[in-house]
């Protein structure tokens, strides 16, 4: 690595009230997989935006192969050989694969040639994809392939990947890693952003760790333990959730043969879902995004009514009850989408507290809201769940993702639910906040509540669940105790191959 592909020196970028990057310097060598590690708000995305030309640095310089590199806009970065696979926000659902690819290219070929090139590249790198499919109908893994192929068609010298594995099954992760290693062997450099430490240790040659906008260290991740890396990221050691004795009580929630048609063109139907949830247990449901997670939560919370007789709480049929009635009966839920679904972005935390806690916490009397009580409730959530906010009157949208998530989960937990359904409770939340949320869920279960945790983070599910099942195309796999599950078996459950195995055994 005599002459690094990209050399960053003293990059600084300040936004009003916060320094996103403070004097960050490191090198990315040719043919190197370089990890960029850090918590939310550590300045990873700002740094990447500067390299990709979306944001101009206040100070500092970048050099590519020794020559000054300061892309004024993404197209300039792309023509210099920098390509980026985004975490979200860069695909168009209503357009097909080829159109999506064409939009990300500087000088796309004719549609027919492009379709042929997409097929070629997708076969070369083991990423099967049909150019004429609508992107809205693709799974998360397939959508990521669209982005990767869009980048590969431009022969990038540096490929930036922003949290690429957060939505993939273990098998898909392996395919992705094979692709990345192949690219590396061809001389392409990769800047790999993630907070999954084991991945970084197995894949990356070098890692740069950011904390609060500053570089902590550049190291060889294979030589560090995951614990050491995590501590560099967080800066203080954090508590891992406690394991606890599993003593399941009586069945509280039982779901039997729940089927629901898909809610829209891009939704997933629920197919014959059956499970039981006992007091004091945590049931973890894994599965790749878009396999019925949102639909299951909607059916349980009462946003969509289920066929009569399919959902019972304490033996009472609540399938046709509306969300308010279900909340009164003790079935609470926290959906995945924080802004817009779990919380109203422009309303204050006090108002957001009233929205779900009004009846259970007695914040309303004679149809009038008691604002002192509402404020007290919001303050209690903020205090108990360490929500970092100027005050309870702050608008929900002003909170960072992790803090809002702590508020949303805390708001439900403090209402003493009998059953709590959560979807992606720690998605996009930094490690310390995630640990706090998981501990709160475990404490709630220890007090006798039943918890259904839907998540795409397998480590999380393994950590907190007593039993585990997976959703695949709206079907629920057989549920197994977590103890004794191997990652291969989980992958098969998530991939839907599990039923065949059962059928085979039954013969």
């Amino acid at each position, binding site marked *: 690595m005599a002459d690094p592909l990209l050399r960053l020196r003293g990059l600084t970028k300040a936004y009003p009230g916060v320094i996103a990057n403070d004097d960050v310097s490191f090198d990315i060598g040719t043919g190197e997989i370089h990890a960029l590690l850090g918590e939310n708000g550590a300045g990873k995305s700002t740094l990447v935006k500067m390299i990709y030309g979306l*944001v101009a640095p206040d100070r500092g310089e970048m050099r590519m192969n020794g020559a000054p590199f300061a892309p004024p806009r993404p197209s300039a970065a*792309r023509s210099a050989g920098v390509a980026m696979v*985004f975490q979200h*926000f860069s*695909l168009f*659902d*209503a357009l097909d694969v080829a*159109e999506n690819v064409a939009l990300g290219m500087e000088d*796309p070929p004719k549609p027919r040639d492009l379709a042929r090139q997409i097929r070629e590249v997708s076969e070369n790198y083991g990423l099967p994809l049909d150019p004429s499919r609508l992107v809205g109908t693709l799974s998360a893994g397939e959508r990521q392939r669209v982005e990767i192929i869009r980048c590969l068609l431009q022969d990038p010298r540096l490929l930036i990947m922003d949290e690429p594995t957060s939505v993939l099954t273990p098998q898909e992760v392996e395919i992705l890693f094979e692709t990345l290693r192949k690219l590396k062997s061809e001389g392409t450099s990769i800047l790999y952003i993630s907070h999954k430490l084991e991945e970084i240790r197995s894949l990356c040659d070098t890692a740069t760790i950011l904390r609060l906008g500053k570089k902590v260290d550049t190291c060889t991740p294979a030589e560090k333990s995951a614990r050491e890396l995590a501590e560099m990221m967080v800066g203080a050691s954090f508590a891992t959730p406690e394991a606890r004795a599993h003593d399941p009580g009586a069945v509280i929630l039982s779901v039997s043969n729940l089927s629901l048609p898909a809610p829209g063109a891009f939704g997933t139907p629920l197919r014959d879902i059956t499970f039981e949830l006992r007091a004091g247990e945590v049931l973890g449901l894994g599965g790749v995004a878009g396999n019925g997670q949102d639909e299951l939560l909607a059916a349980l919370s009462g946003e969509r009514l289920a066929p009569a007789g399919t959902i019972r709480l304490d033996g009472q049929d609540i399938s046709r009850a509306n969300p308010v009635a279900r909340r009164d009966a003790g079935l609470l839920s926290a959906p995945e989408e924080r802004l817009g679904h779990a919380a109203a972005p422009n309303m204050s935390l006090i108002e957001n507290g009233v929205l779900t806690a009004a009846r259970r916490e007695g914040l309303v009397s004679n149809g009038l809201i008691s604002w002192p009580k509402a404020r007290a409730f919001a303050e209690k959530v903020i205090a108990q769940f360490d929500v970092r906010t100027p005050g309870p009157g702050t608008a929900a949208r002003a909170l960072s993702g992790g803090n809002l998530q702590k508020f949303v989960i805390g708001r439900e937990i403090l209402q003493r639910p009998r059953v709590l359904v959560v979807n992606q409770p720690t998605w996009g939340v930094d490690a310390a906040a995630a640990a706090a949320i998981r501990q709160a869920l475990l404490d709630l279960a220890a007090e006798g509540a039943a918890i259904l945790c839907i998540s795409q983070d397998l480590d999380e599910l393994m950590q907190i669940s007593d039993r585990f099942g997976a959703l695949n195309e709206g079907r629920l796999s057989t549920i197994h105790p977590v103890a004794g599950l191997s990652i291969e078996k989980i992958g098969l459950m998530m991939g839907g191959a599990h039923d065949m195995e059962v059928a085979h055994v039954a013969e």
Partner: protein
Amino acid sequence: MDLGSINPILLVASIMVSATPILLAAIGEMVVEKSGVLNLGVEGMMITGAVVGFAVAVNTGSPVLGFAAAALASAVLSLSFGVLTQVFLSNQVATGLGLTLVGLGLSALIGKPYEGMKSPTLPKLDIPLLGDLPVLGRMLFSHDIMVYLSLALVAAVWAFLKFTRAGLILRAVGESHDAAHALGYKVVRIRLMAIFFGGACAGLGGAYLSLVRVPQWTEGMTAGAGWIALAIVVFASWRAGRVLIGAYLFGGVTVLQLNLQAAGARVPVELLSTSPYLITILVLVLISARGIHGAPACLGRPFHASS
């Protein structure tokens, strides 16, 4: 009633004339909405086009100059909407309604001296061969140039959106402005261009009313044509071909009910007068009830390039 008094040749010919203003306004608005902007000011832009086109045509004696001035005036007016909503992030619905009110008031002011005057109008084209066909010649091939231009515009918009890269980018911006921005496309600039085009089309539609269809100036003469254009875009599921169907359907029923009134049909006049609106909406609802609706995902949502 005497149905024999309705001449089918004249009927079809007048349908084409009566549909053209709405077709022009609707195809322009469709492009605007495809880029993700909801401009409710079509009515205001149309009537501004009507009065400016009329005034310029009367003063210069040239209807072609009138059309050009109308397109320019409405496009500039629409740009005020564009700057307010795209740069200053004002609410699109409120600003669009405001644009309609401004257009109606402004046109009444400008048009006061021109009431009761008659403008020069566009000549009917004399198309060789086609115009001489026995029935079809009178029906389809002896109109003024704007009728054919409006049809060509529909085809051009369809091809632009379907086959060109610029059209793909326009659709992408309307589909997800965040994604388009992340890829480096200039969302605001693209939307301003779409708004400008939509304004020009609405202006042409308005001028067609005051210069060809009527042809004179009366206050409030668009009489809701802009709103019908908006409704047609929605019910046409944002497709150029269906916009054409919708506009011709509305024009057709309008002309037919006038003919029926003249022929003394035993149906209340009020019912006949409302029939174009009712039937157009009914048919387009039936068309769009099947299949996907295809509204651009970012329609009406404000875009701010927060970094």
